[in-house]
């Protein structure tokens, strides 16, 4: 009797081993090991200067690692650029199109240099701009678009070659909430279509939309996991206390034995409590009315803050 062989796991879209980059004496990325499965949305999180952009640029083959290697779409970034580049879309953090050219001219130019032939260029342009809700802006100068439009145009240009892997460097930074939601709905469509996406982001609510997360700090990966795994890594539960002086409650809570972390959010004091207390326990200890205390779901923002405070990221 033969047991059916287990299906081989889909090859990873990215497998980095000891990936490093130094700029002079500054080590921007320090021996990063990272695996991204095909079809995943990996959120690359971390403070400014953590090395997120440098990691993405090395994976995009526009920056040479000074140490280690990474296989991207099955080829090494050191030797296989010609294999990787045609199937890769890389969108840097800053606007990287020609501001003095119109939307159509930008799309036309990048489509041509990327080797898409004329009828296909036109079809994809109309399709992509339509999906971005930018059908009517073809004749506008790219530099005069709003921030959200610019990002969507960059994404459209990045998607021209229908890449299997998308590397996005803070694509929604400085973009209004409505445009951000639109942007993510486009990303979700791409994800549903099987595209692997790596997105660097400073926004924790965006992290929750990812299938996998990697925290980067001072050039090192400090934690990886699914959003559920990350929030589960925080000890205790989150409770919210509605108070007129949330600040005072937080100040009072900090340093108490059961309190892991305490922060103000609007007029709420959000306290991470070790163990699983009832509201009454919390209310008694902090000296607030029991009715003002309620349990809340641990979110990514809190999890990230707590893990950062504990130096246990």
């Amino acid at each position, binding site marked *: 009797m033969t047991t059916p062989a287990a299906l081989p796991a889909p090859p990873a879209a990215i497998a980095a081993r000891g990936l490093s980059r130094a700029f002079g004496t500054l080590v921007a990325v320090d021996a990063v090991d990272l695996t991204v499965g095909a079809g995943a949305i990996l959120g690359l999180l971390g403070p400014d200067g953590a090395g997120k952009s440098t990691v993405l*640029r090395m994976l*995009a*083959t*526009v920056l*040479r690692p000074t140490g280690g290697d990474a296989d991207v779409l099955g080829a090494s970034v050191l030797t296989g650029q010609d294999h990787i*580049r*045609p199937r*890769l879309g*890389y969108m*840097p953090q*800053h*606007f*990287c*199109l*020609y*501001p*003095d*050219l119109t939307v159509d*001219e930008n799309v*036309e*130019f*990048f489509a*041509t*240099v*990327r*080797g*898409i*032939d004329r009828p296909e260029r036109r079809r994809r342009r109309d399709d992509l701009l339509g999906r971005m809700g930018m059908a009517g802006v073809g004749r506008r*100068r790219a530099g005069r678009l709003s921030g959200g439009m610019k990002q969507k145009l960059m994404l459209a*240009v990045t998607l021209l070659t229908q890449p299997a892997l998308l590397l996005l460097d803070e694509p929604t930074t400085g973009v209004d909430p409505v445009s951000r939601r639109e942007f993510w709905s486009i990303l979700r469509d791409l994800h549903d279509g099987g595209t692997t996406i790596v997105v660097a982001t400073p926004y924790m609510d965006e992290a929750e939309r990812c299938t996998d997360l990697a925290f980067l700090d001072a050039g090192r990966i400090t934690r990886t996991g699914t959003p559920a795994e990350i929030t589960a890594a925080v000890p205790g539960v989150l409770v919210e206390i509605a108070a007129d002086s949330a600040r005072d409650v937080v100040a009072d809570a900090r340093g108490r034995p059961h309190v892991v972390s305490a922060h103000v959010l609007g007029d709420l004091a959000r306290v991470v409590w070790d163990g699983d207390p009832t509201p009454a326990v919390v209310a008694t200890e902090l000296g607030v009315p029991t009715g003002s205390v309620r349990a809340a779901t641990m979110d990514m923002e809190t999890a990230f803050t707590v893990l950062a405070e504990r130096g246990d990221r």
Partner: protein
Amino acid sequence: MNSTGRLGAVVRKEFLHIARDPRTLVLVLAIPIVQLVLFGFAVSFDVSSVRTLVIDQDGTPASRDYLAAYEGSGFFTVVGTGDELSDVDDAFHAGTADAAVIVPAGFARTLARGQKAAVSILVDGSDTNSARVAEAMATALNSLADQRIAVSWADANGIDTQAGQLTAQSRTWYNPDRISSLFLIPGLMVVIVMIVTVQQTAVTLVRERDLGTAEQLRISPLRQTELMVGKLIPWTVLGLADATLIAVLGMIGFGLPLRGDPWTLGAGAALFVCCALGLGLLISALAPSAETANILGIMVAFLPGFLLSGFAFPLEIVPPALQWLSCLFPARYMVTISRGVFLKGAGFETLWPQLVQLGAYAVVVLALATLLYARRQR
């Protein structure tokens, strides 16, 4: 998509950049015209009349002959005659004359004795340009008129009269062949093309880097050489258009003759434009920022263009170190070609060394720019 398609896309894009930036267009099209007109007028002042007051205190046939030479020269227009020195002051103050020639009493007698006769030429020094011009012309005239006439110079600025302070030689090295507006225009053409092209290409690659588009181009199949050549083609066209514009304006507006072989000139201009563009690309590949590229572009275009090309000074009179330095810039070869063809009627048989030098220069500088740009991208 083949290489031609990608190259075409870059060329189209570069033309769009140029068309979208009115300042670039002004720089490229208007500046040559303005420069040419400015230089043309400044220089045509040389050959036009210097308003001159003559004072004949001698009143002899010899003095009248001497003064007639001034009228007949075409350089000087005699606007009046005076009797004494104070008339000169009045005329300068009133602005009715720029120069005065005074033939003192006893002029004919001194000449008759076979001695050197003294003649005073006063120039209104408040306009330094016309002063220098008039001095130079009077010197030329005197040497033609009579070697025996010694001229005592004076530079009059209203009241202050200091004889013998100015020397006429100051002008002769500036324009060694002879005083002529035509001499400057062929050189000016070279300088203008150099200024327009070097500076423009100097910023072009830096701009791609600053915009972040350089990275996007790197992950496209566009090759380094396709990008370089694509950037060069529009500026080659514009550079040659500028050269043609200046040549045609010079010929129509200033009577510049085209005595030699136009094909040699065209070949030289094409090679020269490539050299200048290559120099710009080299700056662009090396400069850390757009500002640096801009300043380097201006320096590399202006200094060697004006000073080390032979446009303003013959290279023989600059210090040897600068002569060596001038060999590093393409302008000097092209000035030789341009003057040779326009003025001396030269063709390929005399100018081929310069053409070869320009060709070699173009190849080296373009290869170097491509190499350095590629290396920096690592």
